[in-house]
């Protein structure tokens, strides 16, 4: 009987992390589901859903983690068959960088029914005048108009563009 786990691995970035980790998993007949892996600052962060035969994943990855100096965290992931949720709204946010942009925007939008599926942020601009950029894909559970109303109340200096996603099926 296969079970699902959610693995989180974080460490200083270097070439070969994905190759080594996934090679160890494949060699033990673990199968990957959804994954998200990215460089963040000088770190590399990986999240992987893994299907396996009740194996000891900590033990399985012990050597690789020691070699590459990665921190590993394993969670059970019972909801392996969780229905795929699709975004129906795309939101881009940007403005002069200051503390609290993400908190203000996401609190306002959450109160207006936004369920975030995917969110990424970056700092750009010049060193003396940095800007903050955020992209969100989510579900507008109370409709896009409710999000627009909430966006209108967000502080000046933060630009929000809320665009419905009309998925094409063909």
């Amino acid at each position, binding site marked *: 009987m296969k079970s699902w786990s959610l693995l989180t691995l974080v460490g200083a970035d270097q070439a070969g992390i994905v190759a080594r980790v996934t090679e160890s998993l494949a060699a033990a007949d673990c199968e990957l589901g959804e994954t998200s892996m990215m460089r963040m600052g000088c770190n590399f962060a990986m999240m992987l859903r893994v299907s396996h035969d009740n194996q000891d994943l900590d033990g399985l990855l012990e050597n690789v983690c020691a070699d590459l100096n990665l921190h590993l965290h394993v969670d059970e992931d019972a909801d392996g068959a969780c229905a795929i949720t699709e975004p129906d709204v795309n939101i*881009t946010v940007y403005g002069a960088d200051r503390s609290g942009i993400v908190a203000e925007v996401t609190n306002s939008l959450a109160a207006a029914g936004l369920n975030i599926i995917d969110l990424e942020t970056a700092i750009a601009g010049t060193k003396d005048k940095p800007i903050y950029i955020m992209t969100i894909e989510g579900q507008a559970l109370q409709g896009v108009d409710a999000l627009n109303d909430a966006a209108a109340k967000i502080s000046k200096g933060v630009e929000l563009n809320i665009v419905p*996603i009309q*998925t094409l099926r*063909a």
Partner: protein
Amino acid sequence: MTVLDIIHYPDERLKQESENIESFDQSLKDFVDDLEETRLAGPGAVGIAAPQVGHAKRIAIVDVSGLKKPVDNHGYLLMINPEITNWEGMEKGREGCLSVPDFTGNVIRAEKIKIRFQGVDGEWTEFETHGYEARAIQHEIDHLDGMLFLDRLVSRRTDLFQRKSYK
């Protein structure tokens, strides 16, 4: 009329280039009827192309007139031997495909296109279209060229900032 079987990737026939239609006969009309029946059976499908039922011919159907959120459209479009003759602009949108169940992804398409194609009796039509209908037509013509939206996926991080529309 018959609902035909939709073939799914990795069926290699989805990666083949389709052939032009030369004779506009009764068998073509019968096939087009079956293809439309098949599209209507695919939940919410705004288009279908002959290769999706394993028929490597340059035939596609697009109809975006029935969306819950209406978009500009030219109604039911049967496109035989279609060609895009002009492209303008770029727009990111989310697409799914009857031949790739359980996945949707972001694809960049031309915002505005000029299209010419033949009808069921061989007569040519040409017009410009934009937005959602243009996207659907590009998706279907890709099928005729052995391309899937998977061939055009853009990274989650690739984002085109939406332009505000000025009138």
